[in-house]
Structure formats: C-alpha cells, structure tokens
C-alpha cells in the first residue's frame, strides 16, 4: 500500500473510530445513536442555512489553526492564539465602529488593525523567548488572561461604560446580502475568502520564500541555523508575530462577520485552544489546517442540532471530537493496522 493512501486513510479511520465510540456511548446511555448522527448530519448539511453557518464556523478555526501551525513549523508552541484572537477581535470591531470610510479602505483597515493587534500580542512572547529565553508557553498563557481583562476594560472605555460596542458600520462588514440570501439568512460572510487567502499566504511564506526556509531551519536546529548565518532571534520573533497576525485576523472574522461587534467576555472563546487541535490534525500544513478546521467546525456547529432535533447533549460531539484527535495523534497504531491488513491482502 502506498504511503499517500495510508496518509489519507489514517484520518478517515480516526474519524470512523471516533464516531463509533460516540455511537456506543450514546447507545449505552440510552440515546438513539442513529437519530443522533442523523441530527448531526442534518445540523451540518441539513439545508442551505446550516451549510452557510457551518462554513461561517469553520472560518475562524482555519485562522486559529494557521496561527498555531505556523509557530509550530518554527519550533514554537503558541498557546496564546486565544489571546491574540481576542485582541484582534477588539481591534477590528473598534476600527469598525470608530470611523466610517469607503468600504475599500474601511474593511481592509479593520482587518489590518486586527492583524496588527494579534501580531503585537505575539511579538511580546517572541521577544522574551529570543532575548531572555523565556519559555513561550508560559508567557502566551499569561498573555491570554491579560488579553481577556484588557479587552473587557477597553470595551468599557470606548463605549463609556457599556459591555458591548455598537454594531460596526456596514463599510467595515464582511457580511454580504448576497451570501445571506444564498444561504437563507445564515451569517455566512466573506471571511471564508479571507481565511483561504491566508492559507495561501502561509503556504507561500513557508514553501516559496527564503524566510520560510529560515523559519523551518530554525525550527529544526537553531545551532545549525546560526552556523548558516541565519538570525535565529529575528526568526523566532518573526514567527510569533506572523502567527499572532493570523490569530488576530481570526478575531476580525468574528468582529466583522459573525457578530459585527465585540462584547465583554466572561471567559475565553475556546477558538484559540481548538486551533491547537486543528493545526495538529492538519499536521501543521496549510491544506491540512483547512481540512482540520472543516472537520472541527462542522462537528462543532452540527452538534447544536443534536439537542434540538434528537434531545442528545451537545457534549457527545465534544467526546467524539476528542477521540478523533486522540486517534490522529496515535496514528502510529492505525498505520500498523493498515499495513497489517495490506500485507494480509498481498499474502492472499
């Protein structure tokens, strides 16, 4: 059996296994698994509205996934995507409400603001890692909490004491009546296009630019990279900045598309943490991230329909998702099984 087919089979089998376990759990705890999965399927593909919403849900996951993946490729573990996304969300929303400009300027400006905010949030851990060798994992964890509180405070300041900004001006919005009409009033917005562009951007940076070569090299072996004349510190910081920018744009998707405002957060959005799973599901490659985000986002969104249509707690899908990720991580066993099976075939 060729490697490519195996590489394709592994995630597929992981998904199957995950769904299987989920079914067993539902069955054991007295739910109708068939109905449950029917509801899940329906919740994802049931009608245009849901398809639209599913894509809408996938959008920020793609960007969060890119952020994590990009840092990983440079040998950095960015748990701070959550915080970078939150500041991006605020920045975009703020630009969206603060001024009204022609769309061609306003929308890009808002997205750029988000990218810049996320980049700043990534720059700090990057700098500390490069200059003081402070472990990026701690700093990014701390930066998440700081982001949460700072953004809540800023919202209060800019709104003069409210917990939520006004709706952004249409000129900054990613929404489109066309897409909404197309999908029966879902919140599907042009963000998905932005996300896919970013996928190309990451692919280009990593696989087509000199910088990408350096980033990967530094990710594998800093000593050799330094020997080869690369600026290790600069690359570390750059990696975190770009990663943060992706995350920030992820926030912009929520600010300019899904919500069109930003409100005080009682806790984390979770998108950033899910981004870790998405990235690793996608083996830290741009295309992989798209697939990972699609799987993750679809399950996440479709899950809402399980209590709605089949009276099954959404958590079931959480369990299924976790198991899928688990088996992808442990793909080694699955590969073994596949190869065994393949050999058996050849034997016959």
């Amino acid at each position: 059996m060729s490697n490519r087919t195996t590489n394709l089979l592994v995630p597929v089998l992981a998904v199957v296994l995950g769904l299987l376990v989920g079914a067993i759990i539902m069955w054991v705890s007295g739910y109708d698994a068939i109905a449950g999965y029917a509801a899940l399927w329906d919740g994802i593909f049931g009608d245009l509205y849901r398809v639209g919403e599913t894509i809408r849900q996938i959008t920020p996951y793609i960007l969060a996934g890119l952020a994590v993946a990009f840092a990983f490729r440079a040998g950095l573990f960015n748990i701070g995507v959550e915080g970078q996304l939150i500041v991006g969300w605020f920045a975009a929303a703020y630009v969206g409400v603060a001024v009204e400009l022609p769309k061609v300027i306003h929308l890009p400006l808002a997205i750029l603001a988000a990218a810049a905010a996320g980049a700043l949030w990534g720059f700090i851990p990057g700098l500390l890692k490069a200059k003081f060798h402070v472990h990026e994992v701690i700093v990014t964890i701390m930066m998440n909490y700081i982001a949460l509180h700072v953004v809540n405070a800023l919202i209060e300041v800019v709104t003069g004491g409210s917990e939520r900004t006004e709706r952004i001006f249409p000129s900054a919005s990613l929404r489109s009546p066309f897409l909404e009409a197309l999908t029966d009033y879902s919140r599907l917005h042009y963000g998905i296009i932005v996300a896919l562009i970013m996928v190309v951007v990451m692919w280009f940076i990593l696989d087509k630019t000199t910088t990408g070569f350096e980033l990967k090299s530094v990710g594998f072996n800093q000593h050799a990279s330094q020997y080869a004349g690369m600026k290790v510190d600069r690359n570390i910081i750059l990696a975190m900045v770009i990663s943060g920018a992706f995350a920030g744009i992820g926030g912009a998707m929520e600010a300019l598309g899904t919500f069109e405002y930003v409100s005080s957060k009682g806790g984390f959005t979770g998108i950033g943490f899910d981004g870790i799973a998405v990235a690793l599901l996608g083996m830290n490659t741009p295309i992989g991230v798209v697939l990972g985000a699609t799987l993750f986002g679809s399950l996440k969104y479709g899950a809402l329909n399980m209590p709605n249509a089949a009276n099954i707690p959404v958590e079931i899908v959480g369990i299924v998702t976790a198991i899928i990720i688990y088996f992808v991580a442990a793909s080694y066993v699955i590969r073994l099984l596949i190869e065994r099976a393949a050999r058996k075939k050849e034997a016959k």
Partner: protein
Amino acid sequence: MEYVIEMLNIRKEFGSFVANDDITLQVKKGEIHALLGENGAGKSTLMNVLFGLYQPEGGEIRVRGEAVNITDPNVANKLGIGMVHQHFMLVENFTVTENIILGNEMTKAGIVDKRKASKRVKKLSEQYGLNVDPNAKIEDISVGMQQRVEILKTLYRGADILIFDEPTASLTPQEITELIQIMQRLVQEGKSIILITHKLKEIMDVSDRVTIIRKGQGVGTVVTAETNPNELASLMVGRQVEFKTVKGEAFPKDTVLLIEDLTVADYRGVEKVKGLNLEVRHGEIVGIAGIDGNGQTELIEAITGLRKVKGGKITISGKDVTGKKPRKVTEAGVGHIPQDRHKHGLVLDFPIGHNIALQTYYQAPISKGGVIHYEKIAEQAKRIIEKYDVRTQSEATPARALSGGNQQKAIIGREVERDPDLLIAALPTRGLDVGAIEFIHSRLIEQRDRGKAVLLISFELDEVMNVSDRIAVIYDGQIIDEVLPQDTSEQELGLLMAGQSDRKTKAGANEHV
C-alpha cells in the same frame, strides 16, 4: 568450545534495505577482534544486534557455546556482554557515578547510597587504571574521560565481552595510546574485545584477528599477524587500492587570515583563547595541532562569528571581521566544516539537498527577491552529491538517514563548492573510513593547489603531518610553536602538544608576522 561469541549468518533488514546479509563473526576468548568496513557497511548494526538493540531477521548467536536469544540489552548484560557505543550513552547532567550505577543502584533505606557507590567506582577505575573522578558531571569532562565512563559502566556490570564501536574516532593521540593500554590490560584480565575502527594502524597494533564486512556482507576473517594495511584496505573496498595522500609542494602567497592576540571565553566565561596570534596565507594548509580543550573550539567559533570575541583582532583578506555575524564572515570568503556535524553541520530533519544549500539558499540563483526556488536547490544538490560521491537514495532523503561518512561528504561538498578563500576544516575525517578520509584530504589539498588557504584543526597526528604544510601547535589558548611537518617527528610534535616546548619561552614573542 574456544569461541566466546559466535554470530552465524546474521541477517538484519531495515525495511527493504539489508544492512547485514549473512554475516558470520567468531570471537575467541581473550582476543581483541577487529571489525572493519566502509562507512555504512553494517558494523554498528551487527554490534547492535549482538547487544540486543536490534532483532536479527536471520542467523544464530552463541555465547560461550550456548545458543542464545538476545531480546534486549538486559539480556546482553546478563550474558556479560558490554558495549561502548559510538555515540556515548551517557546522561549529560548526571555524575559519573550516577551514570554507572543507573539500573542497578545500591541503596540504604530506599535512598541511593552515592558514597558507597562512588567508592566502588573509584576502586574499579583504579583497578583498570582509568582514574576517572566518580563525582564529576559528564558535561564537564573530556570526551576521553566520558569514554572511560562508558567502559566502567560495562565493567561495573561484570561484562567480560566488550564491544567498542569506533572508540578512537573522537580521541586525541594521547587518549588513544592510553585506551590501547587499557584494552590490553582488559584482555590480560581475561576479557574479550570486539573493536570497530577505521584506522588500519590501530588494527595492526592491537588486534589479534580482523573480520571484514563489505556493503553488509561478510568478506572473511584474517589473522592480523599474517596481513598488512593494504591487504585489509583492498578487502574492505573489494578492489586493489593504495590509500596514500599525494601532495606536491606548497607555494604560499599573501595573507588571508590574520589573527592578532585574540582572547575568547567559553560558555562559562572562562578564557580559553589567551592572546593568540596566527596567520594563514593563500596556497597553504596550516594545521592546528593540539590536545582537545586547548582552545581550538573557541578559536574556530570566534573566527566564524559563532562566539563573542573578548579581545584582539581577526582580519580576512585585509577585511576586519572581529565580532562580525557568521554570515558576514562567510561572505568575507570563509568556508567552515564544523567539528560537530550533527549540532552545527546539518539540519538532520531537512532533506540532504536542503542541507547542501544551507549556505547559499538566500542567494541567486536559488533565491531571487525573497522567493526561493527549490528546483534550483535540487539541481545543485544532485551535482554535489554526484561530484562528492555522497551515498544516498536521493537529494530528498533526510540527512538523518545518511551514514556519518556520507553526511560529512555532503558538508565538505557544500563548503568547498563555494570556493572560499579560507577553508576551515575542523576534525573533517572523524569517524570516516580510509577511503572517505583519502577523498577528503585530496579535496583539501586541491583547494590549496588552487591557491586557496586552508586551516585544518585535528587531534590526529598523522592527519596533521600528512596534510599540513605548516603546523601551529596550540596549547592553553596560545600558539606556542610553529613547525614544518617534514622536519618534525610525531614524538616531538606530541611533546609540543603536551606543552613541553623548549622554545616555549619565545612563545609569547613569536610575532612572526
């Protein structure tokens, strides 16, 4: 039965690749049995099979006549088989004692009894004249010492069959002589030794018999007394060969590298280079002879910009590169074959092709306007792999999967092809087979003959003697003397390296520039 070890028709496969193909090795009690073969011939693999790290696909192993099944190192240990690995199996931040007792610690009330243990280690090391400090941290002791710790580990476990995989590859001449004495003492104590080495001289000196393997297949076993280096070499490669580095006269021209009382500290802040002066000219090979730890590493790292300079001046072809970044130095016309090929020389997880482009990836034709062209990288890699005979499936194979010899050839190719004015070669032939060594030496000489300057750092006397046109002896961070190979004997050189220079008084004052 007189054989303590019998490996009969051993076969070991890695996937589709056959590393050992029907190899037979029989070791007599109390002998030093050498194992000879080119890089990648399958020596380490065979020994790893004997030590239980790999399970063979075929063949039989007998220890003292008993057919045995060595499923893992534990079994090997119990059978009295100990292995001194090519890449030391030592926990860097442990003490010598901790490394030795690991796995069967002696305890008092559940607590590791370090005092008692280190006593025993001390006693053992005295018994075999190893004199290691039981309480020193591994990361603080020399490679030679680390190797002795490896030996102690096996002895501590009562091994009487010892495997040495390229023990001399990373040792200084002194350390090698001492190691040889140690081995002989071990044999007197009734131990048997399997010795892997690429140095025919050593084989001739210490071994009783030699088994040769070629491309994973056993060629046969010869009695050392009845053979000679050339025959061994021919058996190893499979054709008549004469490994002799041919080298014409040197015609040095104007200065390339000029170092004026350079001072460098190591990572702990301890001064390792203390006001060193050196000059290297176009068209000459200058060899730095010295015992490990006399400042060679710091010297090179300072020149190449990998380490801060505390004082002094370094100029390349008149350009001041003191404290410049590595890339500035490289672009000033310096090529560098680093001492540690796995740490500095290669990105092991990159394809070998990327590694070959490691110094040129950012320049045209590979990169234009920040955009990189991997097809250009592949072209370049193919060319160099071809020209330098790097044995690999393709340029896309990860560097990790190449044998050390071939990894080294790739690095040499990378650095030499850039045609630098100054080529710094640090221990360029460590761990390589005679063929590869000869190949690399002639590349260096070729550079010289093309009017380039070469700075060779080596712990191996004969390498320094054969390749250099001029030898600078480094001792305690200074060049204490300069000699010409033709009118110096290895003995004299050895003494100089040990710091015993009659002209030492003049050392500070040899401002020959």
